[in-house]
């Protein structure tokens, strides 16, 4: 349908949006963050988790931090991708994606504890181990604390820049209704996606793969990406369904849009499984001890159980559920599947990071959860606060009415 909306039409859309819920929601998230912080402190002092030494704690924090990072940079990737492909159906959820990228500069701040505790997580940051290990001293050109920190600053700066640029253009579009802004969004998306793809892959190599500095997988960047894209899509789906059922999006988002989100989730569940299997398969086939070791560790005890949980929970279950059209078109079922995927995105990161941060596999505990809730709540507060300042729909986008009328044929 080629329905060209007028500026008046978009104005009336904005008028029909209910008042912004952001402030109260943000306050709720802040309370939750404080509560989980207190729970964490009490749990630590009471010796609630016996295996929780400094190394284990640093690992747990890293899992939570990477979890929120992947969701924000995944959302950023979606914005750029949808601009570049000229997708119309997704215009109604674009503002939510933009809000999801708002925590990026704050996450950079949350990265400081990791930077201060590098030697607890990364063997290459421990000078005595580097001195006694030829492989580590050979890799020290890239894997050394100073350069690592510089790179982290570059990554966060690049992501913040792209996120700021897309948000700024979108706000301008809201205010001026200038049709030429759309072209500038596409242009910025082009260089933005190039920059994001490279920095995010490198971040995956740096932050996750180098935990075991003897192990390399050239596919790891894609694996990191696949999880990020899927995790952020699941978050977007939850957020969209939540805002929709609360009435904050007016009538803009229909079952047709949910159906499309469901189709994309389905596709990226398969994409993740494809990439995860390819990485495993190549290493299994080549059968080099220094490569298979990474998987061999994860085939023992608790890690083996988590490996199988990933095969079933990260792939088989959502795959089978999302096969059905009815699942994708039912908000409750779709939200359940998206939440399920998000939980397994966390387990995936836990499975990647934790085996390198524990002497003996002690499995997840409640302190991991309190750290996760704390970090997610902080980011949730930022996203909710961002939702306060601008309408939850991109009211200046000339394609908004067309997007609202979208229909799967």
């Amino acid at each position, binding site marked *: 349908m080629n329905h060209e909306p007028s500026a008046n039409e978009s104005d009336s859309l904005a008028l029909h949006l209910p008042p912004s819920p952001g402030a109260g929601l943000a306050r709720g998230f802040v309370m939750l963050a404080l509560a989980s912080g207190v729970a964490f402190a009490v749990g630590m002092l009471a010796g609630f988790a016996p295996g929780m030494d400094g190394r284990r704690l640093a690992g747990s924090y890293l899992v939570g931090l990477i979890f929120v990072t992947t969701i924000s940079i995944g959302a950023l990737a979606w914005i750029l991708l949808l601009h570049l492909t000229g997708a119309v159906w997704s215009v109604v959820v674009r503002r939510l994606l933009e809000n999801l990228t708002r925590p990026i500069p704050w996450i950079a701040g949350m990265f400081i504890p990791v930077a201060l505790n590098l030697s607890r997580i990364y063997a290459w940051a421990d000078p005595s181990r580097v001195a006694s290990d030829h492989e580590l001293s050979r890799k020290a050109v890239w894997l050394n604390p100073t350069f690592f920190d510089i790179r982290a600053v570059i990554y966060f700066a690049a992501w913040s820049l792209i996120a700021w640029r897309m948000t700024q253009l979108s706000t301008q579009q809201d205010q001026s209704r200038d049709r030429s802004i759309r072209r500038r969004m596409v242009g910025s998306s082009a260089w933005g996606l190039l920059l994001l793809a490279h920095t995010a892959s490198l971040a995956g190599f740096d932050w996750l793969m180098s935990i075991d500095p003897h192990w390399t997988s050239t596919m790891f960047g894609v694996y990191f990406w696949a999880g990020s894209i899927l995790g952020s899509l699941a978050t977007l789906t939850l957020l969209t369904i939540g805002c929709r059922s609360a009435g904050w999006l007016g009538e803009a988002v229909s079952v047709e849009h949910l159906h499309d989100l469901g189709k994309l989730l389905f596709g990226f569940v398969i994409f993740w499984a494809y990439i995860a299997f390819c990485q495993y398969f190549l290493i299994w086939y080549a059968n080099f001890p220094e490569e298979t070791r990474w998987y061999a560790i994860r085939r023992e005890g608790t890690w083996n159980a988590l490996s199988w949980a990933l095969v079933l929970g990260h792939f088989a279950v959502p795959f089978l559920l999302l096969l059905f*059209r009815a699942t994708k078109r039912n908000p409750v079922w779709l939200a359940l599947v998206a939440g399920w995927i998000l939980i397994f995105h966390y387990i995936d990161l836990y499975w990647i990071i934790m085996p390198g941060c524990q002497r003996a596999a002690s499995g997840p505990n409640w302190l991991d959860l309190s750290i996760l809730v704390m970090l997610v709540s902080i980011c949730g507060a930022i996203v909710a606060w961002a939702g306060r300042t601008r309408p939850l729909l991109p009211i200046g986008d000339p394609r908004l009415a067309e997007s609202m009328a979208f229909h799967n044929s």
Partner: protein
Amino acid sequence: MHGHDEANTHGLYGVLAEYDSPEELLSATQRAHAAGYRKMEAYTPFPVDGIAEAMGFEKNGVAPIVLTFGLLGGLTGFGMQWYSAVVSYPLNIGGRPFFSWPAFIPITFELTVLFAAISAVVGMLALNGLPKPYHPIFNAPVFDRASADGFFLCIEADDPSFDREQAHRLLEETSPRSITDVGLTSVPAQETMATRREGIAR
């Protein structure tokens, strides 16, 4: 030919009504569906939103076909590799067990996709009754407009509740541009049966 119904013995395929706009076609279709007709077809120059639903169309049968053939493809891929590597011609490759299933996964995946994709195309064509070298609807001369500016509804004669007189009466009430009886074969006499409404011939 379905001998059970009298209309067919007269060589009638259906009654075809022509409308000027998609809106008129849509409301006529809804009326025909409400009157109990199920075997009917709409023909339009471009896709019209909601016309399939108006005819009572709910779900196409492609999905179960694709699922079945996808599973079959996966089993075929896995089964063939298992048979050759374990049963028929076991080879020691790098000291691995004969039943090294990870090595079977890529082909299993590819055959799943191949079978599913081909069955989707072939199944869609089959369910649409394609390819169809002959279709009686083209016996109606007015039908030429279906690819230009005519919106057509055909109530087919093999509908269990079909009655020629009733179908004509129903379609008359929806004020179409024309109503034509469509023959199963291109007998010129069919044209004389067309009842044309005055002043609309172009």
